[in-house]
């Protein structure tokens, strides 16, 4: 057990922190929702009712979609975009998808390589992009969920304010939808871009997201 926790510290640690934050969000969200219900003459809800509400769903989904967009773009963009001196970047001379030999696929795969890396053809083509595909798929699903849950919340507020509800396609053109979306995108893109640049000049001893402390600012793709 102790060995399992050590070997899976990142996934277990962040999984636990995620659940703790989600529970905190549920309680804070319920209190905030009930405050708004009181001011609009609506009924208060229990925690379980809140967990099943569109209000909770949209607040969760709008953050999920932006996080997965961030990592999809980062995984995809770092194939083509580099940053001299950043441990987040690969060397300047390796821009692009690189050769089969460098990527150890097809006839360059060894016996320990994943089956689909050895297989060649469409399976290797798909597996070669599986991380980006997974991130993009979760982003699109979360964004769709945001739009559906957001529509429900928006229309309930519209009716509470004696205005007409709108259809799903119309909601995709509503300022509220894009405000929710873009306020998350801008922060994620800023965080990723600044990490790439900060890690050129600043260090975090022992972190794989940092260069070793004594490494020069010009050194690219070296972590420790």
């Amino acid at each position, binding site marked *: 057990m102790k060995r399992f926790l050590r070997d899976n510290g990142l996934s277990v640690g962040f999984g636990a922190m995620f659940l703790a934050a989600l529970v905190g969000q549920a309680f804070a969200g319920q209190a905030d929702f009930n405050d708004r*219900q009181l001011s609009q*003459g*609506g*009924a208060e*809800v229990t925690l379980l*009712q809140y967990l*099943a*509400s*569109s*209000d909770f*769903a*949209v607040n969760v*989904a709008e953050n999920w979609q932006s996080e997965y967009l961030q990592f999809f773009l980062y995984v995809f963009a770092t194939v083509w975009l580099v940053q001299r001196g950043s441990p987040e970047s690969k060397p300047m001379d390796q821009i692009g998808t690189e050769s089969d030999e460098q990527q150890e696929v097809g006839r360059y795969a060894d016996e320990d390589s994943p089956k689909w890396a050895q297989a060649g053809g469409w399976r290797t083509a798909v597996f070669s992009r599986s991380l980006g595909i997974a991130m993009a798929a979760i982003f699109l*699903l979360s964004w*769709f*969920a945001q739009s*559906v*849950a957001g529509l*429900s*919340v928006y*229309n*309930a507020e*519209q*009716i*509470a*304010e*004696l*205005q*007409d*509800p709108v259809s799903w396609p119309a909601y995709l053109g509503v300022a509220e939808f894009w405000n929710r979306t873009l306020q998350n995108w801008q922060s994620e893109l800023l965080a990723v871009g600044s990490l790439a640049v900060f890690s050129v000049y600043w260090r975090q001893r022992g972190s794989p997201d940092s260069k070793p402390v004594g490494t020069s600012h010009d050194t690219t793709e070296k972590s420790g």
Partner: protein
Amino acid sequence: MFRATLATACGLVMLSGAAGCGTGQRESGAAAAAEAFAAAVGRGDAAAACEALAPETVAALVASEGDACEASLNPEELPSGAVGEVQVWGDRAQVRTDSDVLFLVELEDGWKVAAAGCRPQGERPYKCEVGG
């Protein structure tokens, strides 16, 4: 109360959107409350119409008119008619009758009319005889 959220859950899980996530039952409840209000207005029964109103709406009416709800509400000033389109979103519903638009809220004791006798004002909120 959170029937519309089931559509969200469907979307999250399998992109099914509204498929299999109809809002029929809750729409019936809102339609029945709107019908009860419209029927009370139609027969000039102010007491029954007041029963169908949300407490906040009654309180606002009493505060503005300075009299009890039954005395403040004049059914003759309100249009009535058969219920047509019903839209339920969260704990709110908009119900169109032949001659009126009603706004409802779902409370612990069921659907109640929050605003009635409503006329559109372009981009601005509806102007309502009651609850506006």
